[in-house]
Each structure stands twice: as structure tokens, then as C-alpha cells.
């Protein structure tokens, strides 16, 4: 009785071993690649269901392609092999790649692009302003022209490199795209297909799509696993994680254990929000005095332990192509600041600084607040700190119920249109500053300026105006690091993925 059972068991085991733990992964250079993520869940990775933040888009981008993509050097032909701006018609024409198939075997054609452009008119896509593209017209199966409603400088980055193309044969007739969760909803043209998504545990499992038109992926499976930034370094050293974002203090240790560390661009900034709607902050001279009173270098040295770049009053980081080095720097000088404040008659003025802890690398928490408090006291102000939870702080800033507040945001590696959005948009991280007519005009105009050089001039000038009026003060740009084991050559995308996502998980690196 027992013998045949054992024999049978042994046979089954043998069969299991022969088939291998990962079906079909044998021909991949890297069978499995695990990426740690502190948040975990970034939504169902379809274009309409992923969360509206960078990591959510990245998870979607493994499955769906755009017309054009970017790598570490610049634009890369994706679904479109070639493109051209037709000035007379204010349109972009794209020559599409031939022989591209959707994951279900259907052929990709110009009709899919036309469909997608039409679809986002009815169902706005969170990452692309659908009012920019007026209409799309197909010319045969492999050529398409996108007509813009008005000149739009950042079209390549913000539309061509960002808009995921949907398969018409799947999405036609889908009326509620956000809740469309069938298996079909994840049919794209990208290099990977989703095998499993666990919302509760925050995990994603992708499998290589062999028929990818830019070459078969060299990674068989990609796994996103939830793990805090603090435990990720240990996971990397033990080999249970292949890549993760790591805090600056862990870098030396990790490099010592033979891991590769890559440093990102300084496209996130810690920002002192100033309530320029009320006295005395409504006076630009007072805001300039604040900038001179705050020693941004000490903030970097003490609060960030040197792991940051000192903030530029013009918002654009010094390692950006769009950085204007002529902006007023407001070098630290407590005596000058004090006499400026005295001259304005605001000596001893009560100022409250709002601060919240977020526990993320670079976030301006109490450490920064305490230093700013001391420095402003030195300049003759009566400062109090107030610690709030993040959501409350956000809502008070939105409602202008504050004097000074510490916030931060990214996106500074993307198209410089963020200068307009961070000055004029009615959003939390924006300064919402309309007092300076010249600045407003300039920021609106640059968006329609197609000529690169003219636009650069406008961006440079708006930085100077912004720094002169100081509607908000950038304190520093923290250093960002990712560590990985070298199996996949990860890199930071030039200008960030799509609209500027500063995550080194470009799908092209996995081919």
C-alpha cells in the first residue's frame, strides 16, 4: 500500500521540479525581480483605475504604451516610429509602428489612437488635459494626426509621452472606465502583463509579454512588494528585494555590501508656504526679509544632514536644464533681515509656523520648523510652532488659515510648465499668487510658445519674477537614492517618466 504511494509522490515531485517554479521563465536572463514599495497599493493598473500618483502610473505603464516614450537620454519611439509638428495646422503627425499586436493578438492600428483621443474627451484621463487635443484623424492604418486646440509647448511630454493608448475593440462601449476591472481592461501593447494584483496586501505580479515590439523582456516576472523604506535596506542586503528606494543614510552601508546606488535628480522641494493674502506677509519686502532671515544652508546641514541641495528662490532646481542662475539668492544675513523688518514696522510681529510629520525622506518636519523658528526669532519676530496632522495642515493651507507652513512637492524634473501650475493653479502646493500681472502673463504665454529658445527665455524670466516676489520659498531639494542589485540596469528617465515621474522604473530597462 505504502510503496506505490511513495513512488507516486516521488514522481509528482520530479514532475514539479522539471517544470520549474516559474513556468516559462527559463529563457529569461532574470527570472524574478522584486521591487519594494513603502505604500504598496497604487490601484488597479488600468489607465482609469490607478491612483493619480507617479507609482500608480508606473505600474500601468508596464502594460500600456504611449506614442512616444523616454529613456535616460530623451525621446524614444514607442507606438509611433516617427513624428513631426505641422506648424500651419497646429498638429502633430505620427507614423505608427507596423506589426504591433495587443496582448490578445489583435493588431494595433491608427484607429486605436483616434479612439483613445475621442475616449478621453468623454472620459477625462487624469494625467492628460483632454482639452488640448481637439481631434485625431487617421490616414490609413499606420499614420495619425493630432490637431491641437491651441499652441501647446509641452505637448510631447505631457501628451505624446503620457497618454496610454487604449485598444478600441476592448474599450469601445465602456461607459464607466474607473470601475472597468475585467481581465480585458488590462490588454495593452506593453512589455508586461499583470498576473495578480492584491489591493489589501499592496502587491503586484507581472509576467513578461514575449511579443513586445521593442524586444522580449529579459525579466520573467516583476513583483512589487510592500515594504517600508526602513526595512528595504535590510531586504536588499539579504537578497529578498532586488530594487528599492532607500534613505540617504543607508547608502554607504549598501554600497559596501556590493549594491548599486543611483542618485535621482533634485526634483522634489521642501517649501515654506507664505500666506501672502494677509498682513504682513502680503508685503513682498517682508517676504524678502523672511528669505534673508532663513539660513537655508543650515537647514540642509542640520535637518537634512547635508543630504540636500540648498533651495533656489526661483523654484527650479539647480540641476535642471531650465534653471536660471541669475535669480536673486537672498543670502542669509540676520542683521539685514532684522533691520528690514524693523524698517517695515513689523518688529516683534507674531508669526505661527504650521508643521506636520510625514516620516518620508526629506519631508520638512519639526526639525526644519525648529530651526526656522530660531532663525526668525533672531530676525526679531515672535514665532510659535504648531504641530498638526498632515490632513489638517493641508486643509488649513488650502483655506489660507495660516501664517507660514511647511510643505513639499515634486515634479520639478518635468516640463517647466510646473512653474505656472505651482504659482497659479488653485491647488495645495501652488502659491496661488496673482498679484504680479507680468508673472501671470509670462507663465500663461510660455505654455503657448512652441519655439524652444523663446520659451526658455520666458521660463528664465518668470523664475526671476517669482524669486523677486517670493510667493513661497523653496528651502531645499533632498537627495534621492535607489539601490538595486545590478541585475537590471535601472536609470532615471530624462525629464521623468511621462509627465515627470521621478522613479527609476522605466519599463525599457527591463528589456
Amino acid at each position: 500500500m505504502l510503496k506505490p504511494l511513495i513512488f507516486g509522490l516521488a514522481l509528482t515531485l520530479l514532475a514539479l521540479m522539471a517544470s520549474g517554479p516559474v513556468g516559462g521563465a527559463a529563457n529569461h536572463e532574470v527570472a524574478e525581480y522584486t521591487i519594494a514599495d513603502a505604500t504598496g497599493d497604487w490601484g488597479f493598473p488600468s489607465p482609469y483605475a490607478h491612483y493619480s500618483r507617479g507609482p500608480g502610473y508606473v505600474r500601468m505603464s508596464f502594460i500600456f504604451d504611449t506614442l512616444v516614450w523616454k529613456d535616460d537620454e530623451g525621446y524614444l519611439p514607442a507606438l509611433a516610429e516617427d513624428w513631426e509638428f505641422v506648424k500651419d495646422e497646429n498638429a502633430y503627425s505620427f507614423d505608427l509602428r507596423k506589426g504591433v499586436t495587443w496582448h490578445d493578438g489583435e493588431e494595433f492600428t491608427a484607429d486605436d489612437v483616434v479612439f483613445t483621443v475621442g475616449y478621453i474627451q468623454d472620459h477625462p484621463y487624469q494625467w492628460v488635459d483632454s482639452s488640448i487635443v481637439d481631434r485625431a484623424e487617421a490616414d490609413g492604418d499606420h499614420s495619425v494626426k493630432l490637431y491641437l486646440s491651441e499652441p501647446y509647448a509641452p505637448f510631447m511630454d505631457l501628451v505624446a509621452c503620457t497618454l496610454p493608448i487604449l485598444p478600441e475593440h476592448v474599450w469601445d462601449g465602456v461607459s464607466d472606465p474607473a470601475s472597468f476591472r475585467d481581465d480585458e481592461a488590462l490588454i495593452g501593447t506593453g512589455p508586461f502583463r499583470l498576473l495578480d494584483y492584491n489591493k489589501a496586501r499592496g502587491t503586484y505580479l507581472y509576467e513578461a509579454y514575449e511579443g513586445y515590439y521593442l524586444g522580449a523582456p529579459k525579466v520573467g516576472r516583476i513583483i512589487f512588494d510592500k515594504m517600508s523604506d526602513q526595512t528595504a535596506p535590510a531586504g536588499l542586503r539579504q537578497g529578498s528585494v532586488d530594487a528599492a528606494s532607500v534613505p540617504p543614510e543607508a547608502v554607504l552601508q549598501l554600497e559596501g555590501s556590493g549594491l548599486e546606488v543611483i542618485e535621482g535628480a533634485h526634483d522634489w522641494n521642501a517649501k515654506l508656504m507664505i500666506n501672502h493674502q494677509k498682513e504682513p506677509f502680503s508685503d513682498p519686502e517682508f517676504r524678502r526679509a523672511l528669505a534673508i532671515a532663513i539660513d537655508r544652508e543650515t537647514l540642509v546641514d542640520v535637518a537634512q544632514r547635508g543630504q540636500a541641495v540648498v533651495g533656489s528662490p526661483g523654484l527650479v532646481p539647480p540641476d535642471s536644464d531650465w534653471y536660471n542662475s541669475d535669480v536673486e539668492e537672498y543670502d542669509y544675513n540676520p542683521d539685514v533681515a532684522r533691520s528690514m523688518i524693523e524698517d517695515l514696522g513689523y518688529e516683534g510681529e507674531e508669526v505661527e509656523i504650521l508643521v506636520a510629520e510625514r516620516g518620508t525622506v526629506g519631508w520638512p518636519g519639526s526639525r526644519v520648523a525648529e530651526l526656522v523658528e530660531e532663525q526668525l526669532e533672531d530676525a526679531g519676530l515672535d514665532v510659535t510652532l504648531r504641530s498638526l496632522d498632515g490632513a489638517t495642515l493641508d486643509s488649513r493651507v488650502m483655506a489660507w488659515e495660516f501664517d507660514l507652513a511647511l510643505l513639499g512637492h515634486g515634479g520639478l524634473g518635468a516640463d517647466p510648465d510646473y512653474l505656472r501650475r505651482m504659482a497659479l493653479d488653485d491647488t495645495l502646493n501652488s502659491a496661488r499668487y496673482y498679484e504680479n500681472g507680468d508673472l501671470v502673463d509670462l507663465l500663461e504665454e510660455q505654455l503657448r510658445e512652441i519655439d524652444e529658445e523663446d520659451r526658455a527665455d520666458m521660463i528664465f524670466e518668470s523664475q526671476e519674477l517669482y524669486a523677486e516676489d517670493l510667493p513661497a520659498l523653496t528651502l531645499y531639494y533632498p537627495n534621492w537614492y535607489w539601490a538595486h542589485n545590478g541585475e537590471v540596469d535601472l536609470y532615471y528617465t530624462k525629464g521623468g517618466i511621462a509627465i515627470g515621474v521621478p522613479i527609476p522604473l522605466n519599463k525599457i530597462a527591463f528589456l
Partner: protein
Amino acid sequence: MHVNVWHEVVESNMGKAGLLLIGLMVVLAVFAPVLSPYSPRENTSTPAFSRPSADHWLGTNDARQDIWTQLLYGARTSLTVGFGVALLTALISILVGGTAAIFGGLYDRFWMRVVDATMAVPDVIVIILVAAYLRPNVLLMILLLSALSWPGGARVIRAQTLTLKERMHVSAARTFGAGWSHLLVRHIIPDLGPILVAIMIQDARRAVFMEAGLSFLGISDPSVMSWGKMMQYARVFTYLEVWKWWLLPTGLALSLTLMGLSFTGYSLESALDPRLREADHHHDGGI
């Protein structure tokens, strides 16, 4: 109350340990400036994340501040909040519970419903909400925590007073026309002593814990040192070795304080409640 409760607490091992721990923390808090040459917010010239040394007994944190100093000053905050809440809660409990028991009737029913309502309030959420409108500081924290934690004590005091007021000497005082304040102060409170202290210790323990928790969440006066805040900071750097002399001692200090209060409270309770008492040892002290 024929048992000498205090004597029993000091006699029991649990009580000794508890009082010793509380005493230790009080000494650390009171003599903080003597025990450390630094101020808690001072950015020293020693590099960040230094190991413990003769200059810095527990090393330095991310902002080059001395961790030992912060620990000492953190004890001040914890104990201030703990004792403050204990005193204030006891006061409210006596006023509400005591008078409710003495007056009875509608007045009693009203206060007991208030007690029920207050007990149902989720305190952390209320405090977060209040902190959004008022500037959190130590005094506000004491007021808030007291306002939310008096009902338990009030209930116990009321029950105890109800039995006390039927005692002979209280009835006698009443027949001689004693007013409620006289009854409460002269006859009820003295007999409430041990139970009152037990309630206070319980409230203090809860307050110390809540204060640490709230400042961990970032709801505290940023300019006041606190163990919760220290842990919040230390948590971010757990991948470095620094947790051993930053997170661990802070957690230990908080645990020891809570243990001190718990032990004292427990031994007090077992002295008060005959069912919890060890059989032989206290034979002579039985009721």
C-alpha cells in the same frame, strides 16, 4: 476600612517595585538640568548618529542633539501630564461622583448620563480635532485628557459614596444638619482615600500613554521634548544602528514609567480588594 492599605502597598514586592520606578523617573525629571550639560534642542558639534560616549551617554540623534538629555526632559513632560491629569481627573470625579451620590434623584441621573456619553467619545479623535483649532501645549493636553477620562473615576466614586453615606457617622452628621460640602470634605473624601489614589494612578498611566501616543502622531507642542516625539523621529532611522541607543532607551523609559504606575496601582488594588489578597500573609488584616 480597617486595613492599613498604605502599609500593605509598601510591604508588597509589587508595590515596592512600582514606587521605586516612579521615584526614579521623578528624580530623572526633576534633576534633568543637573544630570546633563546640554539643552534638549541644542545642535551639538558631535556628528549626527554618534555612538554613546562619555560626552553623550546615549549618543546623538539625526540633528546632532544629545539623546540622554532629551530622554530626561521627555520624562518631565510625561510626568507633568501624568500627574496633572491624575489630579484634575480626581477633582472632577469627586465633584461629580460625590455630589451625584449625595444628592441623588434627577441630579444624579443627569450626571450619570453625562458619564455614559463622555465614555462613548473616542478620545484620540476628539483630541486630533481640537488640536486642529487650538495650539496643542502641555496645559491643553492635561485639560483635554482630564475632560475625557474623568467618567470612569466619577462612577467608582459615586458607588463608593453611596455605600459610605449610609454609614452611621455620616447619617449622624446629616441629622445634625451638615451640608453636602461638609459631608463630602469631612466624611466622604477621607474614607475614599485609597480608592481615589487607585483611580488617580490609573488615570496617570493612561495619560502618560496617551501623551506619548499623541506626540508620536505629531499632536503636541513642538517646542516641548516628549518620548512619543523621540520615538517618532527614531522610527525613521531604524535601518541604522542608532535605534539601540535612541529608540530602545526611549521605549524602555516609557515602559518603566507605565510599569511603575501599574505595579503601584495593582498592589493598591489588591490591598483594597480582599478577593485579590494573598491568603495567609494578610490574615491579621482581614475585614
